[in-house]
């Protein structure tokens, strides 16, 4: 049963990723990326990471995709033109291949049963909000505060970048 659900979410994720890359219309790309995010949320759910799964849908499929749409509208990309990425294309293939190698090596090292998950699935309440909250604010308090600094930098950056030299089109 679990295998079928994994296969379903995995196939949907991979298929929508491929379709997203092959799609020429940027708006359709964003919609397909939402499909990818939701199927990855399904995979998280199967890993007992309920909180992460919901966050994946709320933040990635919801808010970040809206941001993507705004960027597409901002740049006025109606249709992707063929010859634009002439230099970037071989470079992208090379980078993707370089990124794929360590991931593949990692998967292969796990395939032989390198690490097995705990038999009880990490204990009662694993992946639930209580456990995440306790860990975030005790053991991992410093990373959380650093995340706040990161968000602060992002706020300042967004305001500074968009404030000066704004050209308003329409109205």
């Amino acid at each position, binding site marked *: 049963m679990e295998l079928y659900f994994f296969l379903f979410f995995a196939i949907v994720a991979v298929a929508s990723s491929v379709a997203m890359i092959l799609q020429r219309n940027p708006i359709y790309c964003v919609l397909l990326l939402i499909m990818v995010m939701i199927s990855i949320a399904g995979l998280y759910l199967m890993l007992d990471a309920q909180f992460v799964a919901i966050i994946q849908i709320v933040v990635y499929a919801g808010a970040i995709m809206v941001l993507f749409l*705004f960027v597409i*509208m*901002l*740049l*006025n990309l109606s249709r992707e033109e063929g010859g634009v990425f002439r230099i970037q294309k071989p470079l992208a293939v090379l980078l993707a291949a370089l990124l794929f190698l360590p991931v593949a090596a990692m998967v292969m090292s796990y395939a032989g049963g390198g690490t097995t998950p705990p038999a009880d699935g990490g204990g009662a309440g694993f992946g639930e909000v*209580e456990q995440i909250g306790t860990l975030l604010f005790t053991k991992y*308090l410093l990373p959380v505060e650093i995340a706040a600094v990161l968000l602060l930098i992002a706020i300042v950056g*967004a305001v500074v970048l*968009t404030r000066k030299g704004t050209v308003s089109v329409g109205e």
Partner: protein
Amino acid sequence: MSYLPLILLVILVLIVAAVIVTLSSYIGRKKTSASKLASYECGVPIKDSARKNFSVKFYLIAILFILFDVEIIYLYPWAVVYGDLQLYGAAAMGVFFLLLVIGFLYEWKRGALEWD
């Protein structure tokens, strides 16, 4: 299988949506006229294409929303375990919040929340 009701709900919603759309396209009466098929049956006539550059202001609002959205994510697990953490938790979140309130005050004072 604690997610069985959820999966059933998803399947049910998909079935209901498909049935409603198919039924209305078969049973519904189709009387078309030029004004009925226009993009906006009522309202102002279309001026020009919608495919034009949008102001960067939309983007600014969106990214500021996302940043505070991410902040809320931290707030949620904190609120769940607040009873256990007590004063320590309040102090931890206080520092976190203070940093973001600085950002909020900055964008407010710089006029990033003003539309013009």
